[in-house]
């Protein structure tokens, strides 16, 4: 803390996580010809957040819209290649050779490759289409010839039947007309036409229906199912189809049927009645099929080779195009100088990056052979700079936890520093079991050991979160092992790890009972202290005893209050750090001090009582003491007195607490009003002095100073703050009792699982039941205790930090520093590009 209190600037270099990096608004004037290189180098550096100076212009009115369109087009080509590669089953590989390639060359090359690929595809498609048509044709030939065969044989049968009948039944009974009918039939026979083809199966019913309706039933339709899906020549998709043969008579019917076929996407194929011709056709089609097949294969091979070469360099190209696009997007944010010879950029950069940026600028102007170098200058501004913390992989999850609540105001005290320890610790208080802790530790160690592998690959949503917070989970696991040792719980079983229990049975009878029950005793009545106190944590003898719960509850409850009061005090002290750092004396005297007094005179005193009670072993009732401190402060404490002079102390503390409330409430608004008036008067005189400043940031400056001061608003604000703090100190302290509640729930749940599942199964002396019991126990332990309890303890720890701790000092209304960097463009642009 000591070094933090120094505050007031750059005098605390080692703790750069406590205050965000000092930032500056810089202006770069870059000659037109070296702009591209400069921005590219700055992107490599990643230390400058450009401000959009053309916010009022629409995207296509900006200077580099054409270039963005060009790179958009290149990105489209790359997507096309990727699509093609996916279809062909290639995956873009990381190429070992980083061929140096210019963006202009790349554009030409991409266009060439695209044209080539499109041509190959078109050829391939044409061939494929011809091939598919032939396949369909072959199917039609096969199926239709089956129809004709069966029809012919049945016709022959009928013929012979008819002939036999004619011979057998040539009697007087035979109607005279029959013969005539038969004979005229053949002479008058209309030439039946037919159409063969394939129709998609799902449309077949509708097809049949429409055919029937259109020709008023004057068609004969035969169909056969094609078992395997057929590739449709036109769409190129696999479709299930039926072969059909339609017989019709007359030209009009034919036209209608043709139209219907067309409308249903039924492909028609010529078919001959002549058997010889059929055979001939079949052989011809088969021959052409095999020919086409080889041609298609060659084409495919050629395409695969092309895709292979694309795949080798794909990643590099993609990166290049992305980089190019982001450079132009950045260049579009710069404003064009009046002379149109240089671009003006404004942006935020951390102060430590000044040298690096200047170096990059020099390199850029050297590399682009520019005659004039870029100009770098720092601007004065009253705008609030962005917040930038340099985190590493260990601190970043904790910073994330804080940022999820709100990004710290520029240079505000950052709670992350403390969260690194307090967060896992509060978690562990609720999750105290060293068995569970070890399980958690193993899981997170797995993530940490395979860190290299995991960080390079894409993980699922939840896995990603776990992986991102792996060091946080590591700390949580370590702390829960620690608290687990204190609570002396290992899957709810106590162990005599550090020493034998301090208590033993007084006499023999008690020992026998103990043997019977398996534990030492169900009461503590018969126990006497035989050894020195158990050196670390809770004595295992408490487990299973009748007074286990009252003992642990009282312990954990008091501990929760101690932890809570300590953390809230830390929060208030941090508000002092902020006030000191921003040189805000009002906040020190009229906020920090009364708050500290108020909290500590009530709950600090309670903590003191708890400590005194623990160390002296007194039996005083602390509820009683606290309640009667308010109700009748002058009464005698009687047997609840813990130390001499307690009554006087209580009176003083109570008085202090009552004084602290108006102290917090009343003076601050008046002082602010006075300050505002002073500043306002002074302003009219000092305007001339700072004319240089005003020149540069005219509008900003003015709007800041002429801000209206609404006294009533400020007063109400202060009132709300005061009420919130006063009530909050009670409710927040109570809120810390969740530490006790969750820890109780955790230990009770785990003991239920242990006693009612594992021990019950054990008791049956049956292997199968035991195995089932063990399996259920493991599932319950993992599912409920390790996953759900972890989540709930995490959430409660989160809440304690966000609400109870951070509301004492944290403003959290800043905005994050997003430097222009190529490292970012990696995955974020994937979709939009």
């Amino acid at each position, binding site marked *: 803390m000591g070094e933090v209190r120094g505050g007031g600037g750059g005098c605390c270099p080692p703790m750069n996580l406590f205050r965000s990096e000092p930032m500056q608004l810089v202006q770069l004037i870059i000659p037109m010809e070296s702009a591209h290189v400069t921005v590219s180098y700055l992107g490599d550096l990643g230390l400058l957040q450009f401000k959009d100076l053309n916010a009022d212009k*629409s*995207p*296509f*009115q900006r200077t580099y*819209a054409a270039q*963005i*369109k060009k790179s*958009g*087009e290149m990105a*489209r080509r790359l*997507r*096309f290649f990727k699509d093609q590669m996916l279809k062909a089953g290639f995956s873009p590989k990381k190429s070992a050779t980083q061929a140096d390639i210019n963006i202009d060359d790349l554009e030409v090359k991409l266009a060439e490759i695209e044209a080539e690929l499109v041509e190959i595809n078109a050829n391939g498609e044409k061939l494929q289409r011809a091939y598919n048509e032939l396949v369909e044709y072959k199917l039609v030939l096969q199926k239709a010839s089956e129809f004709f065969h069966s029809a012919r044989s049945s016709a022959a049968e009928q013929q012979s039947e008819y002939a036999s009948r004619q011979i057998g039944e040539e009697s007087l009974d035979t109607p005279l007309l029959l013969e005539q009918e038969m004979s005229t039939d053949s002479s008058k026979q209309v030439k039946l036409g037919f159409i063969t083809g394939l129709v998609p199966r799902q*449309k077949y019913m*509708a097809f049949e*229906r*429409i055919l029937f*309706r*259109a020709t008023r039933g004057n068609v004969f339709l035969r169909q056969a199912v094609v078992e395997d899906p057929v590739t449709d020549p036109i769409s190129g998709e696999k479709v299930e189809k039926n072969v059909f043969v339609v017989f019709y008579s007359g030209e009009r019917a034919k036209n*209608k049927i043709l*139209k*219907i076929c*067309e*409308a*249903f996407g039924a492909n028609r194929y010529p078919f001959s009645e002549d058997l010889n011709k059929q055979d001939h056709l079949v052989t011809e089609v088969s021959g052409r099929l095999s020919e086409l097949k080889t041609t298609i294969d060659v084409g495919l091979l050629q395409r695969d080779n092309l895709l292979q070469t694309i795949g080798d360099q794909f990643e590099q190209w993609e990166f290049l195009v992305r980089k190019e696009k982001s450079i132009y997007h950045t260049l579009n944010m710069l404003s064009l100088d009046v002379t149109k010879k240089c671009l003006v950029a404004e942006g935020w950069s951390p102060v430590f990056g000044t040298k690096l940026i200047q170096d990059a600028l020099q390199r850029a102007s050297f590399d682009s052979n520019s005659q004039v170098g870029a100009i770098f200058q720092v601007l004065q501004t009253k705008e609030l700079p962005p917040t930038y913390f340099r985190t590493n992989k260990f601190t970043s999850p904790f910073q994330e936890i804080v940022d999820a609540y709100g990004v710290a105001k520029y240079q505000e005290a950052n709670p992350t520093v403390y969260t690194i320890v307090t967060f896992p610790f509060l978690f562990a208080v609720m999750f105290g079991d060293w068995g569970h802790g070890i399980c958690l530790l193993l899981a997170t160690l797995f993530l940490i050991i395979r860190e290299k592998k995991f960080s390079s690959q894409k993980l699922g949503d939840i896995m990603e979160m776990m992986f991102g917070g792996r060091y946080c989970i590591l700390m949580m696991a370590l702390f829960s092992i620690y608290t687990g040792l204190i609570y002396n719980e290992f899957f709810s079983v106590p162990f005599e790890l550090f020493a034998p229990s301090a208590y033993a049975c007084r006499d023999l009878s008690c020992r026998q009972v103990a043997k019977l029950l398996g534990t030492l005793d169900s009461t503590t009545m018969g126990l006497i202290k035989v050894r020195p106190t158990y050196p670390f944590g809770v004595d295992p003898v408490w487990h299973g005893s009748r007074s286990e719960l009252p003992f642990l509850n009282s312990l954990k409850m008091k501990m929760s209050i101690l932890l809570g009061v300590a953390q809230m005090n830390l929060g208030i002290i941090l508000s002092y750090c902020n006030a000191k750092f921003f040189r805000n004396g009002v906040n020190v005297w009229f906020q920090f001090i009364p708050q500290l007094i108020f909290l500590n005179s009530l709950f600090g005193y309670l903590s003191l009582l708890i400590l005194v009670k623990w160390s002296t072993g007194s039996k005083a009732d602390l509820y009683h003491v606290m309640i009667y401190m308010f109700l009748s402060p002058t009464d005698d404490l009687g047997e609840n007195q813990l130390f001499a002079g307690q009554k006087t102390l209580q009176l003083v503390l109570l008085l202090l607490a009552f004084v602290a409330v108006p102290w917090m409430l009343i003076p601050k608004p008046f002082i602010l009003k006075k300050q505002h008036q002073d500043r306002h008067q002074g302003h009219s005189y000092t305007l001339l002095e700072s004319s240089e400043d005003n020149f540069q940031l005219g509008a900003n400056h003015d709007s800041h100073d002429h801000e209206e001061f609404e006294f009533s608003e400020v007063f109400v604000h202060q009132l709300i703050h005061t009420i919130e703090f006063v009530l909050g100190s009670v409710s927040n302290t109570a809120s810390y009792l969740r530490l006790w509640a969750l820890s109780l729930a955790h230990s009770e749940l785990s003991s239920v699982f242990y006693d009612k599942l594992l021990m019950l199964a054990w008791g049956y002396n049956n292997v199968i039941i035991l195995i089932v019991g063990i399996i259920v126990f493991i599932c319950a332990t993992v599912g409920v205790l390790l996953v759900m309890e972890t989540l709930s303890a995490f959430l409660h720890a989160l809440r304690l930090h966000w609400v109870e701790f951070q509301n004492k000092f944290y403003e959290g209304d800043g905005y994050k520093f997003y430097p222009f960097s190529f490292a970012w463009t990696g995955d974020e642009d994937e979709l*939009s590009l």
Partner: protein
Amino acid sequence: MYGFEALTFNVDGGYLEAIVRGHRAGLLTASDYNNLCQCENLDDIKMHLSATEYGPYLQNEPSPLHTTTIVEKCTLKLVDEYKHMLCQATEPLSTFLEYITYGHMIDNVVLIVTGTLHERDVHELLEKCHPLGMFDSIATLAVAQNMRELYRLVLVDTPLAPYFSECITSEDLDDMNIEIMRNTLYKAYLEDFYRFCQKLGGATAEIMSDLLSFEADRRAVNITINSIGTELTRDDRRKLYSNFGLLYPYGHEELAVCEDIDQVRGVMEKYPPYQSIFAKMSYGESQMLDKAFYEEEVKRLCLAFEQQFHYAVFFAYMRLREQEIRNLMWISECVAQNQKSRVHDSVVFIF
């Protein structure tokens, strides 16, 4: 049911209402249109649209764009959204959603029949059809020679079948007949939709009756104006008006006898809601009428979103999107043909 929508609506309709309101938030705003109107070529339009919800649909289009591609892709997005909603919908919302597409179905039928009459290629015609109004056997429409056949062959399977009962004649199809058929179908459709909405009751009935009445009245005016100077008799004209709406029945009687546009105007100015529309136009002018009607419609459609727990938002959303696509088409055409001065002629700002 009225008054209790808040209690029960969300059981089935809540999710979809949320979805449709989300979609509505993606409609282009006036500033978008302003930017679009400033575009120099179609690539600029694409670039601007890529920042909107249309982005994913346009991003893979190779660079020389055509107006038709833009419109096609934008329509595709609407169709995708519609299909998603239809899949999620339960009765009676799914029927309601299906009703929305019948109008397109009628248009498609008329398009194909007219096209075949003029011996166009069926596939070419199919491409021009609105994808929302497609049904399985639509291509077979080309086979039909007269309305009876049309009905018997194809339409009997479609939801349009009941609407056809009024217009079956054995006359051969010609342009006039087809136009009458379209209007008769539309009349039957609007009346059916109106009845359906009344049956649903509650806020849906209230709002939809307003929207559909407006639609019916607009059609009545259009029919009147278009039939002036044709051989359509007054009685026939009267028969094409839908039997509901603000103009029904007295306005219809008066419209039926109108001989020129100024008489129509005279009739319409008696109705306060339409007075403002006609007040914007000078005498004898009918070009701007369409736009004026569209503007009024958009205003009413937007108001449908002001109330919660009813189905009219789906209707309103579909209509607004269609208007937006019409706007985009107009802007793209103007940009493509270098007629930027006319860009504002037909664009209806939605917000």
